[in-house]
C-alpha cells in the first residue's frame, strides 16, 4: 500500500517517462535528498534550484512558455507568499495575451497543519490559491487520488496547483484504494522506490508498472453516503470528517461526506444534489475562516438552495489568527478537530427551522 508521498513519486515518474514532464525543480528536490518529504527521490528530471521561490516559479513559467512541462515544488506553502505576483501572472498568462500563450505548469506544495510545524510549516494555502483565476487547484486526500490528480495536472494545458496535505504524506492507501500495479506489500514497494539511508549515489529505483490513471478535475468523491447532513471538505479534513460521520451513526445521524478533490473546477453538481437531499450542509477545511473557500460555497448554497435548507449552512475552519502555534493545545485550538466536527454535524442534524 503506497503512502501519499510514494504515490506522488510514482505519478511524477509516469509523468517524466510517458507524459512529457521535462523538469521537476525546487529546493532539495534532486539528489541526494529527493525532497524533504521524499516526493522526488529517484526521478530522472528532478534537479536542485537555488533557495529562491521567485526563481523557481519564474523558471517554471519560462519553461512552460518554451514548450516544456515543468513541475515546480515550493518546499512548504508557507514560503509561497513571495511568489504571489508570479502566480497571478501564470494564472493570467492565457487571458492577458488573449490566448496567444498558455502556461502549462504544475506547482506542488505541502499544505496544512498536523505535523507540529509551528508558525511556518502549518499554513494552508487554499483560500489564497482559489483567489487566483486561471489556476486549477487540486488537493488529494488519498494516495490513489494524489496519483491520479497529479497525472491529470501534468497533462493539463493550464497552471495547476497541487496542494498536498502534509499530515497525510505518510498515510497509506486503504484496502480497495490501491494504485493499480503497486505491489501489495509495503516493504516491497519501499525497497523498490525509497532511497536507502546513507550513500545513495549508486542507488536507482525500480519502478512498479503503474498505469495512466487520470482522475478528472471537478469530480468530487462521496466518501460516506448519508441522509441527514452534507459535509463538504477536502485534504486532511476528509479523514477527520469521515471518522466524525462514523461516530455519529450510533446516534442515528448519517452524514454524507464529500471530498471535493479539486477546488477549481469545483463539483457543484454533487454538492447541490446532496444538499437537496439532506437540506443541511457543513463545510470543513483547515484554512483561516475569513474569505475562506467554504464561505464562497456557502454564498452559492444560499444563492441557489436557500428555500431547500432546513438549517443555516455552516463553515468550520481555522481560527482567523496569524499562525498556527506550536504547542499542541494551540494547534488544536486553531484548526478544526474531530470533536468539533462531530458537534457541528450533530447541531445541524438537530436544528429545527
Amino acid at each position, binding site marked *: 500500500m503506497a503512502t501519499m508521498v510514494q504515490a506522488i513519486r510514482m505519478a511524477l515518474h509516469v509523468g517524466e517517462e510517458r507524459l512529457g514532464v521535462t523538469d521537476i525543480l525546487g529546493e532539495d528536490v534532486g539528489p541526494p535528498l529527493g525532497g524533504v518529504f521524499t516526493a522526488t527521490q529517484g526521478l530522472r528530471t528532478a534537479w536542485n534550484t537555488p533557495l529562491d521561490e521567485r526563481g523557481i516559479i519564474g523558471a517554471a513559467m519560462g519553461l512552460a512558455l518554451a514548450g516544456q512541462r515543468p513541475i515546480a515544488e515550493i518546499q512548504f506553502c508557507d514560503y509561497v507568499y513571495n511568489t504571489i505576483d508570479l502566480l497571478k501572472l501564470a494564472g493570467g498568462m*492565457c487571458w492577458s495575451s488573449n490566448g496567444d500563450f498558455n502556461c502549462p505548469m504544475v506547482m506542488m506544495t505541502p499544505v496544512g497543519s498536523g505535523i507540529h510545524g509551528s508558525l511556518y510549516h502549518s499554513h494552508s494555502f487554499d483560500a489564497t490559491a482559489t483567489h487566483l483565476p486561471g489556476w486549477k487547484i487540486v488537493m488529494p486526500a488519498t494516495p490513489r487520488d494524489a496519483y491520479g490528480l497529479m497525472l491529470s495536472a501534468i497533462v493539463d494545458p493550464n497552471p495547476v496547483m497541487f496542494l498536498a496535505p502534509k499530515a497525510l504524506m505518510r498515510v497509506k492507501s486503504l484496502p480497495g484504494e490501491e494504485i493499480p500495479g503497486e505491489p501489495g506489500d509495503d516493504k516491497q514497494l519501499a525497497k523498490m522506490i525509497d532511497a536507502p539511508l546513507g550513500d545513495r549515489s549508486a542507488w536507482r529505483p525500480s519502478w512498479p508498472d503503474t498505469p495512466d490513471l487520470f482522475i478528472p478535475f471537478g469530480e468530487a468523491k462521496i466518501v460516506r453516503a448519508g441522509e441527514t447532513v452534507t459535509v463538504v471538505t477536502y485534504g486532511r479534513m476528509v479523514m477527520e470528517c469521515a471518522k466524525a460521520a462514523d461516530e455519529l451513526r450510533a446516534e442515528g445521524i448519517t452524514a454524507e461526506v464529500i471530498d471535493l478533490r479539486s477546488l477549481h473546477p469545483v463539483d457543484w453538481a454533487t454538492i447541490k444534489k446532496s444538499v437537496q437531499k439532506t437540506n443541511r450542509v457543513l463545510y470543513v477545511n483547515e484554512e483561516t475562516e475569513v474569505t475562506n473557500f467554504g464561505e464562497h460555497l456557502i454564498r452559492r448554497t444560499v444563492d441557489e438552495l436557500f428555500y431547500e435548507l432546513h438549517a443555516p449552512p455552516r463553515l468550520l475552519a481555522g481560527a482567523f489568527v496569524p499562525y498556527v502555534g506550536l504547542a499542541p493545545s494551540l494547534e488544536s485550538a486553531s484548526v478544526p478537530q474531530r470533536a468539533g466536527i462531530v458537534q457541528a454535524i450533530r447541531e445541524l442534524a438537530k436544528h429545527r427551522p
Partner: protein
Amino acid sequence: MNTSPIHHATNGVDAHLAPDLLVRMHELMLQTRLLEERLITMIRQGDGYFWIGGPGEEAFNVPLGLLVNKGEGLSHDYLHLHYRSSGTLLALGAEPIDSLRQMKSVKTDPYSGGRNFVGHYSARKWNVVPISSPIEVQFSMAPGTAIAQKRAGGRGITIVQGGDAGTAEGDFATCLIWASRPGNELPLLMIVTNNSYGISTTYGTQHGEPRISDRGKAFGIKTATIDGNDPEVSYRELQKAMEYVRTERRPFLLEAHVSRLYGHSSSSGANFVEDEVDGLARFEARLVERRILSRATLDDMRTRMTAELLAAYQKVREEAPPDPSSIWDHVFATKNVNDGGAR
C-alpha cells in the same frame, strides 16, 4: 541627462556599418518615434486611457529587434521585454497600426484583444512572451526559456530587458544567480536600458553602484556598459554580446544608457524633455553629414510616415470595442499552444 560614466567598448566612428543598414535602422527609429508621438496624441485626444512607451530608446531597441533571430520555438530567440519596447517590435516586423489598436482598446488589438495597456505586447510567432506591468518579473521568467534552450543546444538565446530602477527588485538578483549556476550557465542576454529614472526618482538617489553592469562581475558574467543613444554603438555591442551568448551558451549583462524623451508615461504629462540626448536627431545629423540621407529625404519620410499613422489612426477609431462577453474567453486554455499544439 545622463552623467554616468559610459564605457565605449567600441569606438563608434572608426568603422561604419553598411549604409543600407544605417538607412534601415533610421527608418525604423523614425517610425518608432512617430508611432509613440501618435500614441501620445491619441491619449491627449481621449483615444486611450494611458500611454507608456519608449521614445528615446529607439537607438538601442531598433538594433536589438534587427539582430534577433526571430521566430517561434527553441531554435529562435525568446524575448522577455517591457513596456518601452516598441522599437524592438517594429524592427521585428510589427505593424504600427496594431499599437494604435492596443491604445484604442479595440477588439482587433492582436496583443491583448483590448485588455491591456499599450506597449504590452505578446507575439508567440516571434517568441515575444506577454509583457506585463509588474516591474522586473520578466527577469525571474527568463531563466526558464534559457534553460530549455541550453538543453536544446543550437544557437537560440533568451533576451531579457528592463530598466535601471527595476534592478532593485529581487528578480534581477534571481536572474544573475540562475544565469550563472556553475555548470549550468545559461544562454541569456540580460539588458538594462538605463534612463536614470524610476518615474520621478533618480537613479543616483537610490543606487550606490556606479554601473549596474558591475553587478554581473561577481557572478563571472561578462558585462558592458554602452551608449544606447547611438544606434551604431548599440548595433555593434549587441552583435558582440549576442554572438558570445549564442556560441558560448553563457550569460552576458549589457547596460545601455538611453534617454526618456517624454517622461515616464501619460501620468507625468508625456511632454518632450529638452535636456536629454535625442538619439534620433543626432543620428539624422550624422547621416546627413555623411551624405547617406539628405534633409529633404528625411523631411519626406517624416511627412509620409506621419500621414500613414494618421490614416491608421482614422481606421482604428472606427473599429469595434471587444464584446463584453469576451471577458470569459481564455481564462483557461483548451490546448497547449506553446509546444506548437503538439499536445
